[in-house]
């Protein structure tokens, strides 16, 4: 587990694929404890992205994030469902949610 668990921390399982894992030390799966920003009780996808940028990413952040969202070509899945279906950046995450970031592949 990454990070000491504080009272209102949220445990999430993050996965990076399609090459994105190269930005995270070539590790695909990460069990993390995410603190909800300042007084907000909720962790949204937007706060998760900035948490990842500040705590997890090892190199070339521009290959993962662009402005406040993910860079083009990255598919985001929350519990195996496209985040487009649950409100993209506004999606409110829950304890033990699984979030997958996967870059679309072009090879064949």
């Amino acid at each position, binding site marked *: 587990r990454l990070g000491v668990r504080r009272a209102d921390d949220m445990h999430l399982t993050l996965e990076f694929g399609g090459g994105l894992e190269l930005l995270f030390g070539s590790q695909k799966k990460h069990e993390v404890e995410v603190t909800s920003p300042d007084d907000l009780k909720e962790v949204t996808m937007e706060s998760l992205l900035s948490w990842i940028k500040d705590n997890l990413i090892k190199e070339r952040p521009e290959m993962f994030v662009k402005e406040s969202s993910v860079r*083009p070509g990255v598919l985001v899945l929350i519990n195996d469902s496209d985040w487009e279906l649950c409100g993209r950046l506004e999606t409110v995450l829950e304890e033990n949610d699984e979030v997958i970031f996967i*870059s*679309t*592949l*072009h*090879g*064949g």
Partner: protein
Amino acid sequence: IAGLSHSLTAAQIQRYSRQLLLPSFGVKAQENLCKGSVLIVGAGGLGSPVALYLAACGVGCIGIMDPDRVELHNLHRQVIHNEASVGETKVSSASRTCLAINSSVKVVEYPFGLDARNALDIMAQYDVVVDASDNVATRYLVSDACVVANKPLVSGAALGMEGQLTVYNYLKGPCYRCLFPTPSPQAACQRCSDAGVLGVVPGIVGTFQALEVIKVLTKVGEPLSARMLILDALSSRIHTVKLRGKNTQCVACGELPQITHITLPNFDYEKFAASPMSDGTPPREQV
């Protein structure tokens, strides 16, 4: 089976008997296959198993499109070719293998690449299109052309130890641009010639693509429309995820499409994708 009124010959009944036995398949489904037609864009790692299994199961007309010639380093994954076909065009090598397995199907060879000018005319002649290509520019072209020509698109991709598969532009599902309105940055557009690929990975994805084509042609089962199959061969983890539906604002398949049969032929896909359609680009690390 022989007694029923259907269009299968005795030889077809014998050849496809193990499929005809299937409760969920049967004569009507086989007739749909034998009358069906599929265009396979790419005769490489993905296209090999797609063409092999679609010829074997009896798809009436198979179009195979690829500008390249067979090379030795293709053979670790492009199992429709062999040592004797090195130097030959991929489409004629693939066609020979398909006809050797099933001489009753028709194979149409397109020894050149799909481009904005020829896409719509060629696609119009087929029921289903398979994206087995290896570059971003072609993937946007194939998707746009399928939307304009109103054809379902079975799209697969494979690189390294990973694979992805979905059916675009079918039922109420999204098209490629619905998912990726803007192309990946250049550094994320890798080819097998750059990042490498394990042979069986396009093998698994391509065989699965053949399954999706069969289901679209026969209306049997639920194809991967608005769902994506994700394969990680390193951990043998494979699962399907739920995708968004059509994006009403999509420039291709939305309510006010900018990509039409008039504008598509003049669209510069290589410029849009900032990468060429043919192989032979300098290696870049996939991110």
